[in-house]
């Protein structure tokens, strides 16, 4: 990290998005994380994705728990409100924030300790409730901020820095999200920007709960030989079945993944999610088979990445609850207070 502040000037030819802003307008403050930390690459990907989508920066709300990953909301979208809450409880705070104003784009950032240990219960239930948000786990298989303890996503048999093996079964949040029925499930790698950025865009624009488990190596505590979440291991053991690209309404589809089936899903705003199947046998609309693929790969020590499952038509929490379109936080006395007449009728019913 550095203590030197970023200069305010930027390159004159820096690309400008549809609302006249550059990537710089979507950045946050300088990161205090270790040099080479995967989480910084994730923050950069989020920054780029939000700039590409041309959503005004203040229309995002960023929420996190506690941990190295949970520090990252400071490092992107500096003009958005952020909430660094308490350990493992980001889902409930995000739920409340989304209920209060359904029009904001909610990004929740968490870590494997935050979501797979203390936060496991809240994680499962926010998936159930289908809160409209993008939930990103920066998964490094360790507790970085408290200096290197095991996490629940560490693979059994992999070792920590001192060579001690993990004795317990791992928890896979992707499998859990699939099992509970999340309508957008993906896994990616902080080192694969080309894969990650479209997933973030698609996840943000998907109406419903979008989950991306990002393997994001910890250079300080879990990047050694014996780790299954190191840069080297992930690069050598990942496989992808579906390449996803997110295309704005007016854009041309330019990505070309070569032979293989391609599908387009049109989102409500006219943008398109293009799915390019790298494996013909894989069906990103089949939740159960996606789960089977992920589990099988895990048994073989492989990490499946890419968009694993999507249901573009699933309802979100607000639709399920049938709340009004107007954000609840902007309703006034006229909308909310039934008045003295109604109260007198209630009194009368109690006589």
């Amino acid at each position, binding site marked *: 990290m550095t203590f030197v502040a970023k200069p305010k000037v930027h390159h004159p030819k820096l690309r400008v998005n549809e609302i006249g802003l550059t990537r710089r307008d979507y950045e946050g403050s300088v990161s205090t994380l270790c040099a080479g930390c995967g989480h910084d690459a994730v923050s950069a990907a989020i920054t780029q994705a939000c700039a590409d989508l041309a959503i005004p920066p203040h229309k995002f709300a960023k929420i996190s728990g506690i941990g190295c990953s949970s520090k990252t909301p400071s490092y992107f979208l500096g003009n958005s409100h952020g909430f660094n809450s308490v350990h493992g409880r980001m889902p409930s705070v995000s*739920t409340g*924030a989304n209920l209060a104003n359904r029009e904001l784009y909610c990004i929740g950032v968490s870590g494997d300790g935050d979501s797979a240990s203390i936060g496991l219960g809240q994680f499962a239930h926010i998936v159930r409730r289908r809160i409209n948000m993008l939930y990103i786990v920066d998964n490094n298989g360790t507790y970085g901020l408290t200096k290197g303890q095991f996490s629940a996503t560490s693979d059994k048999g992999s070792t920590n820095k001192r060579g001690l093996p993990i004795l317990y079964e791992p928890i896979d949040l992707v499998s859990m999200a699939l099992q509970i029925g999340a309508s957008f499930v993906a896994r990616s790698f902080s080192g694969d920007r080309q894969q990650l950025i479209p997933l973030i865009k698609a996840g943000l624009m998907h109406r419903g709960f979008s989950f991306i488990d990002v393997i994001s190596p910890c250079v300080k505590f879990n990047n050694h030989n014996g780790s299954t979440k190191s840069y080297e291991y992930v690069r050598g053991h990942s496989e992808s079945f579906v390449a996803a690209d997110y295309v704005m309404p007016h854009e041309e589809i330019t990505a070309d993944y070569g032979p293989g089936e391609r599908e387009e899903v049109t989102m409500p705003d006219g943008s398109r999610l293009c799915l390019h199947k790298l494996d013909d046998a894989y069906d990103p609309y089949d939740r159960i088979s996606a789960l089977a693929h992920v589990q099988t790969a895990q048994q073989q020590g492989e990490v499946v990445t890419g968009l694993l499952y999507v249901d573009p038509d699933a309802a979100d929490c607000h639709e399920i609850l049938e709340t009004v379109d107007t954000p609840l*936080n902007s309703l006034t006395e006229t909308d909310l207070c039934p008045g003295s007449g109604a109260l007198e009728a*209630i009194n009368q019913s109690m006589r």
Partner: protein
Amino acid sequence: MTSYNDFVIRFANVNGSGSASANSMFAKALFRMGIPVSTRNIFPSNIAGLPTWFDVRVSERGYLGRREGVDLMVAMNAETFEEDVAALREGGYLLYDSSAGLNPRLYRGDVSEIGIPIAKLLLPEFQDPKQRQLFKNIVYLGALSALLEIEFDVFTNMVSAQYKGKDELIQPNIHAMEIGRRYAREYLECPLPIRVRRSEGVGDRIMIDGNTAAGLGALYGGATVCAWYPITPSTSMAEAFEKYANQLRIDEETGQRKFAVIQAEDELSAMGIVIGAGWNGARAFTATSGPGVSLMTEFLGLAYFAEIPAVLFDIQRSGPSTGMPTRTQQSDLLACAYASHGDTKHPLLFPSTPKECFDFAADALDLADRLQTPILVLSDLELGMFDTLSEPLTWDDARSYDRGKVLSADDLDRVETFGRYLDVDGDGIGYRTLPGTHPTKGAFFTRGTSRDEFAAYTESPEAYIANMDRLQLKWKTAAALVPQAAVSGNDNKAGIIFYGTTELPMQEALDRLTENGIRLDTMRLRAFPFGVEVYEFIESHELIFLAEQNRDAQMRTLLSIEGDIDPTRIISVLYYGGLSISADTIHDQVLQHYEETSRPRLTEVKS
């Protein structure tokens, strides 16, 4: 000697047998005759099959507190029959199902037995075993109408209203009532020397429980988000809010809801949802009991330090731990006042009546927004769950919500410097902004860590101290905004302090003490932090009693900590058995103090 409108009747039933609705009908009938009644239920932490007791106190003088001793026992549970007979006062009346006779071992020479062969009477009338069971309760209602001279058409009108639209239920119910009434008139001495008669005592008061009133108050007060987890005895508060919201908060055109209710997976999540909603500008609340407060404690600390509005209703029950889930107590006071690690304190409100539950619910939402902090409303099982007399609920249509210091986009354009935690007005409260307000101004980071006035992370001692001191200043501002204590009388040298449901038996206790030559001024605490009037009352009385329903005299502790008062200055009057404190308890303990200290009485007026 005949007495009117002055007795305690206890119904002893098996829970899950339909007795609750029959017994409520009894209380309601008397209420509709204008007679002041209070009800309380001893129900087990169970769904069906265990004993349950329903007490109705009838009091022309308007004494609503629990009274020791039972005058008329309706003993319908064989399992508890022996103890129910023993609970009767000398000269009392035992009403029971005599179909199987009475065990001579249980005969008491000093009570009158009223045997009605209820089961036998029902056999020829109803064939369905379920009906035969349910209508037992209705038969004794009919008998009681004759025994106590309850106006029979009040009962029949209630049945017709209750089962309106389900006519096939009305006739059998009325028929079962007539069976009981006819039997009583024919075979029993009717009416009894204890009886009722129409009264003006009720006036325009309503009969409602505190949780329903609180749910309505939250609705009228503008709450849009309710997140909760089921626990006895707070469940009915959240359910009341949801029920009335589904009636009164539906958009006319679209049929959509102007509120959101989430039954969370646990209390931690419930509180997190409330805080996330409050952070994002929606009025939000949760309802729970002691065990839930324990779970929510971490989040309460976050909301205190990060200064986020939230409202928590703690409907207290007997603790510690799982305690007695279906019994009342006032023992969460310290846990709520200082919830969470570090130097924290939270405003508390202490409603005593259903009307106050309604008013304080709405006030709590205003206070949370104004003070940018969690507000805890401390009710209890007695107040929350039992139907009792209350002044009607009122709402001023001109009232607007106090949303507190929130800057709009225009405000941000005009303001030179915005700092979330900057004390611009000198009251300790900064200005906040909501997410999504302005493209380039007003965004800041909310977190539970220390920060400077501009919400930037810092560990600087000076910045931390300044922030903590500002929170103390905010606390002083709170003291001027929360409901003041209700003080009555200032002529006596002795006074008694109390709060919440300890008010119920207080007038009766005071009247009896007066008969014994002891006069007390009273102060009912309604909120924390304490205002100057609280300390003035203590200062101006030589002898101070404090009556409360917990073992450790928690309110006395709170007063001594916050007011620098020597705790030995306050004499505790305590009851913590899980029932509602009675006038007897208060009277006896106060009297005992006078006797033990040989304190003079009749001359105890200030000169």
